[in-house]
């Protein structure tokens, strides 16, 4: 499969995401924020970083990048989209996912190996995991506290749309310990921790993150 990775001005993890895509057995296709063209890819990753310098709000300017118009359109038709960290913020600003991500409650940047439980393995990005699988991946964010109003939280919980939940430590003040969610169709997933930094034994806390990049095969086969 051909999986696009978007580079915005200020993206940091696009190269790691592309590498993870390849480790997952796919072709990585570079997509550019300024091109309203998805180059016929089968799925899209919005990587982490500080797109547009996090000016205004994280993800607020990226939302209107030409490439995002196409991402929103195709996501509506079922294209699998994974937003990691800044990508998650962009998905929320784009209203592809409900809620928002605000500054960590303790006000410090956090960088740690984080235990996370996969609570929904029915998305195209998590199908390689067992339901309830507990994994360790890198978490690094300054504005990673997931917030939403109570009806939205109730709906996410009731519909099984909390894809991943923090274990042991809530690292940023996210409501309901939410680490990741999906849209109602399940094709759009936003995740604050970074599975693309946990795909090789050489660096990072292990290879627990690889499942996000091998799941697509299982999901679409």
């Amino acid at each position, binding site marked *: 499969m051909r999986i696009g990775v978007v580079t915005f001005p200020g993206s940091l993890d696009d190269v790691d995401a592309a590498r993870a895509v390849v480790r997952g057995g796919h072709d990585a296709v570079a997509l550019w924020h300024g091109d309203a063209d998805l180059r016929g890819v089968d799925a899209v990753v919005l990587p982490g970083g500080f797109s547009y310098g996090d000016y*205004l709000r994280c993800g607020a300017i990226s939302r209107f990048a030409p490439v995002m118009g196409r991402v929103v359109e195709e996501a509506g038709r079922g294209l699998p989209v994974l937003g990691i960290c800044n990508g998650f913020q962009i998905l929320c600003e784009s209203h592809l996912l*409900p809620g*928002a991500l*605000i*500054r960590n409650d*303790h*006000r410090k940047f956090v960088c740690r190996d984080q235990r996370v439980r996969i609570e929904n393995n029915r998305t195209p990005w998590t199908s390689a995991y067992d339901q309830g699988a507990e994994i360790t991946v890198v978490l690094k964010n300054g504005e990673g506290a997931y*917030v*939403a109003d109570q009806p939205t939280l109730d709906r996410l919980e009731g519909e099984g749309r909390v894809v991943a939940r923090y274990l042991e430590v809530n690292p940023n003040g996210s409501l309901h310990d939410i680490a990741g969610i999906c849209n109602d169709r399940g094709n759009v997933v936003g995740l604050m921790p970074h599975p693309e930094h946990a795909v090789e034994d050489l660096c990072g806390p292990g290879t627990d993150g690889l499942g996000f990049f091998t799941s697509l095969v299982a999901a679409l086969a």
Partner: protein
Amino acid sequence: MARYVVDVMPKREILDPQGKAVLGALPRLGFEGVVDVRQGKRFELEIEGEADEARLDQVRTMAELLLSNPVIEDFEVHVADQTVAELAHQEGRP
């Protein structure tokens, strides 16, 4: 030329870590009795033409679409008394 102001504030029910940091700093500077601080943003927009209701509506749309995130923030818009150029003139700047 008219100047429009958009004030954006975090919703009451949303935690405001930046406001909390300021609240923590004030007593250390000797300011007593401050019980809450909320930190927001102020935008000043200069727009061609006289200020009117249609322009104000347009500014409201800008605030909804880009300047604020309605999930976590509230905003208010109003027409400012003076343009930035007028203020600069008063202060003797070119």
